[in-house]
């Protein structure tokens, strides 16, 4: 069902956990849909220097979480914000059609974390 890349990220997820003293944090999803994802980021000079995730969810949810952390690490915020659900799915060599809703989660969590960071820095 899943591509090799998905299974790789599922079996060996990158960047699991929470960054210490996170500059931004985003939690999306809910238990009814079976997927909850929390992304925490560290930002320096407008660049994401560290990022970690925790995810309750299916194989696709965990793999997309892992993939999104790889994609954004080291990126500046503008580039990170440009990452869409499609980018994540593509980077994983695609997801089964029934799993597309899970892939939405990862980019959403990222955007939520960036939003959170911006709100904090503004004030």
């Amino acid at each position: 069902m899943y591509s090799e890349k998905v299974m790789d990220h599922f079996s060996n997820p990158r960047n699991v956990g929470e960054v210490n003293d996170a500059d931004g944090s985003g939690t999306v999803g809910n238990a009814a849909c079976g997927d909850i994802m929390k992304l925490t980021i560290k930002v320096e000079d407008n660049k994401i220097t560290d990022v970690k995730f925790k995810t309750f969810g299916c194989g696709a949810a965990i793999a997309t979480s892992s993939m999104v952390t790889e994609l954004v690490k080291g990126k500046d915020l503008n580039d990170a914000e440009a990452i869409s659900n499609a980018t994540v799915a593509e980077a994983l060599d695609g997801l089964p059609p029934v799993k597309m809703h899970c892939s939405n989660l990862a980019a959403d969590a990222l955007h939520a974390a960036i939003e959170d960071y911006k709100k904090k820095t503004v004030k």
Partner: protein
Amino acid sequence: MKKICFDHNATTPVADEVFEAMLPFLKGEWGNPSSIHWAGRGPKKAVDAGREALCKFFNCADIETIFTSSGTESNNLAIKGLAWAKKDKGNHIITTRVEHPSVLNTCKALAKEGFETTYLDVDADGLIDLNSLEAAITPKTILISTMFANNETGVLFPIKEIGAIAKKRGVTFHADAVQAAGKTPLDVQGLKVDLLTISGHKLYAPKGIGALFVRRGVRLTPLIHGGHHERNRRGGTENVAGIVALGKAVEIAGRDMAAESERMLAMRTRIEKGMQARIPHVKINGHLEKRLPNTVNISFEFVEGESLLLNLDMKGIAASSGSACTSGSLEPSHVLTSMGLSNEMSHGSVRFSLGKSNTEEDVDYLLEIMPAIVERMRSMSPLYAASK
């Protein structure tokens, strides 16, 4: 890597004896049972013998059986067939919230034709309340359709008691015994059921064959019209090999059930106790006693079922889950949520369903690898962290 199947409620392998029995009807005896010449005679005899075996299994007469293509078709034929035949008598059907989609979606489809369905609730153990059942019966009620045993939890409904109520109130009673067949006795006379569904591939026969018991005197409008097959109740050239296979499978089921059930029960108990002893925050779903000997349904709190299944699969173990994600829908198991489980606990459920191939070593292996899998997935879960 050793492959272990703990998913026998999804389907079963074709038993060797069943395979041997059906083989001649795929290879040599390929005639049409309706033909009067040499090619038809062997197949005709084989269909008759398969029906005889089925009658013995059900404890019924030959005219009380219909071969179909699946449990799903049998359920459709029972429910729609009865509803259509009795539509002048009433338009009310009673079923439960925890039925298989082949029952629920059939009732839903009938709603478009003006039939009404009462869906009985279940309690935390997955059982219905017989008083509520009786209270739901109205003068318009034509059919009660309930599972014999639940496919997700193994919970056994009190079929005999439901049958007694149905009989007393003059309502036809259909039991979906797809999961019960071969695991618990099915005497249709003792049980007072009027219609009873079984499916071959849950019983070590191949996919593509099912059957329906139809009590003498119960009229059904056919679902599939055609020739004179099955006494005009189900058209189509008979699936001879499938019928032979199902006949052999029920013969074996009758022969081996007592011993196999005992063996299953011992393994089931070990899995349940073992999981509870080794892993915190687990919950066994379904009534602890009134359950099939082969089915364990466990929720592992804080983690999602599909991710557990994938981990098990990587270790060679096949199981299934009440998580939405395994079925491609967005909602978790209607069975578990109907029992009052939270969404999270429903998503975190795994079903281990035992079968003939399983051994105590399989159970050892499962109990050995499961704790680490759960722990690993919990360490990734935002819910687990939050609960600490």
